[in-house]
């Protein structure tokens, strides 16, 4: 096929090729390939959430005995049920990755009940052994660890002490990132504040640009975001000459001057592991979580504006996170309305389920959850 719209994907495959090499170790087996289905809620070349998954899917494509089928822009309705069913019935898929949060309940659970022999692994859902079937499961990365480190860099780089966060909706995953980023910044710069603006949906380019600009007008000089595609936020901030911190994937190319660092997913760790388990006849884990230590998330390489002091501080905290001596969420912790949300003496490890239902913004965040 000589189609032009494959350029993006070829680039993805190229960049992922090095990492793919270790996936080939299993050797070529001449049996029926394992068919793995990926479903994305948006375009898979969005410089963001979906691309992070698609990059990992591209790694799987290089593995021997694995066939990857993909569908993009599948809405979180009956359409995703039919996409899963179609991959099972028409493509013979036996491992499915519906990657958007809204696919989980009821859509994926419904299909899992109907096709008990197919393995379903969902990104971000809270799999519960008591309620959910054993052929389902969820995986997620503690990307707030990377956000905390990015917050440290932002806190040590900002001149105005005002950080900005463009967010889609006030849901736990987003709040956790905002809070970790703020806590990181305030750990090195106690006067720093984070201004949050919610745009209301996952992909609204004009509103994201407007939100970025209105924060710049308020004197914000480091911006990060949690929307499906950070491209617009990063480019707008770069044009205005302020600093940016990325999300989902590496956006350094979009902001060669102002890009500090960013919180990135590294899904191939999970996907390659799951697929190899399946090929050996096993079943992938049902509740898989991990952060920097497991390699499920990482920070982008530092940009030119990051000081040596900031790099050293990040390394120090990172070491603490890796050896388990450092907790991001520890009491006493107040929310931005003055209530104590974590009592003094309590320190949550990342696996703490309470954290997955976070519904507050910590002290230092300007914004509200509703």
């Amino acid at each position, binding site marked *: *096929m*000589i*189609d*032009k*719209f*494959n350029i993006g994907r070829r680039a993805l495959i190229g960049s992922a090729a090095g990492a793919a090499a270790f996936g080939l170790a299993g050797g070529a087996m001449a049996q029926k390939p394992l068919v793995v289905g990926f479903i994305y809620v948006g*375009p898979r070349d969005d410089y963001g959430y979906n691309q992070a998954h698609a990059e990992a899917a591209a790694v799987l494509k290089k593995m021997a005995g694995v066939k990857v*089928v*993909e*569908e*993009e*822009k*599948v*809405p*979180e*309705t*009956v*359409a995703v049920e*039919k*996409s899963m*069913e*179609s*991959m099972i*019935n*028409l*493509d013979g898929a036996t491992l499915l990755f519906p990657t958007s*949060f*809204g696919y*989980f*309940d*009821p859509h994926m659970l419904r299909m899992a009940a109907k096709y008990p022999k197919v393995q379903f692994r969902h990104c*971000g859902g*809270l799999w519960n052994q008591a309620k959910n079937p054993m052929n389902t499961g969820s995986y997620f990365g503690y990307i707030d660890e990377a956000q905390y480190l990015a917050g440290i860099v932002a806190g040590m780089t900002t001149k105005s002490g005002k950080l900005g966060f463009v967010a889609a*909706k*006030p*849901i*736990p*995953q987003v709040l956790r990132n905002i809070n970790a980023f703020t806590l990181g910044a305030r750990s090195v710069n106690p006067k720093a504040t984070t201004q949050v603006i919610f745009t*209301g*949906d996952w992909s609204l380019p004009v509103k994201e640009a407007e939100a970025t600009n209105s924060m710049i007008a308020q004197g914000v000089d480091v911006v990060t975001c949690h929307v499906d595609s950070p491209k617009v936020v990063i480019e707008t901030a770069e044009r205005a000459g302020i600093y940016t911190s990325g999300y989902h994937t590496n956006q350094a190319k979009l902001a060669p001057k102002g890009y500090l660092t960013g919180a990135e997913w590294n899904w191939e760790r999970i996907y390659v592991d799951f697929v190899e388990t399946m090929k050996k006849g096993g079943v992938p884990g049902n509740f898989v979580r991990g952060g920097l230590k497991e390699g499920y998330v990482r920070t982008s390489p530092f940009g030119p504006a990051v000081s040596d002091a900031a790099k050293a501080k990040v390394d120090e905290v990172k070491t603490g996170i890796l050896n388990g001596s450092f907790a991001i969420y520890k009491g006493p912790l107040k929310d931005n309305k003055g209530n104590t949300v974590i009592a003094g003496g309590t320190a949550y490890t990342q696996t703490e389920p309470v954290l*997955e*239902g976070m*519904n507050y913004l910590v002290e230092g965040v300007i914004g509200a959850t*509703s």
Partner: protein
Amino acid sequence: MGTAFERIAVSALALLASAVIFGLLLILYAGVDPFEAYALMYQGAFGSWFSFQNTLTRAAPLILTALCTALPARLGLIIIGNEGALVLGGVAAAAAGVAVSGSGPLVAQLTMAAAAMIAGGAWIALAGGLRQYRGVNETISSLLLTYIAIALMNHFVEGPLRDPSSLNKPSTHPIGDANMLGTIGGSDVHWGLALGIAACVICYVVQRFTTFGFAMQVIGGNPKTARMMGLNVGRYVLIACFAGGAAAGLAGMVEVAAVHGKANASLAVGYGFTGILVSFLARHHPLAIIPVAILLGGIGASGGLLQRRLDLPDAAVVVLQGIIFVCILASETLYGRSWNWLWRFRAVEGR
């Protein structure tokens, strides 16, 4: 307009033309063999029992939302607020369903349907009323009302009606498994399809065989004459708009009660906008809506296969829908003409 044979022949010609244009696009731009693409589309839409059910499931909401445009169109109104009526219907259904979730499935389902139909109906009746009594253009007001409805839905779902345990996908409380609409017989297709077909048949019967329907036709033909005949045009406008909005609202209820089990932002995925297309393609004829919705449902159902097997972008099916739409509209010109029309690209002088 035209005999049955003429209708079928012209529609087939338009579809053939669409297929040729789309095929050329595939060859020239994507380097894909169009016959392979068509074979896949047939496989994905109608090729097996699974595929056909997939198609019917996707057609179900389109049938109901199409009526939202089709009914007011009889009076000469162009309503494009289908999506707004659908999402508000969905939110109303979920709120009502949660409130009465303990009173037995039948009561709960009827309450949900009533709430949804009132919410959707009132929303579109508002557009009709503004047009009738304030002279506000109904196409524009119904579009604005759609954006407002979506904002309201988001506000309710993430604010007052939110279930705190719906973490990363803010939703209302669930209506309860017992109150869900099931599937038809031994199939995977939910009862929304049957509701849609029934609604279309009822609308057809009313339009074709009752004085009410005849009066609508008179008003649609010439409102001034209708007024001279003593018809209360305003009342008909309100009723037709309410009925159309109620159908779209019911589609929202079906989404809640047969698919999601609760209301959330996934109500607004464009069924309402596609419903507008279905209505126009069916020339606002209630019975023609059914096959047209199935055709569009089939195109939607086959889109996934085109992505997976041929590496086509998801937009391929949108392009195809657009081409079909334009070709069928352009084919209107063929009705009642001799076949030398091709050489008579003559302007319409006036309307």
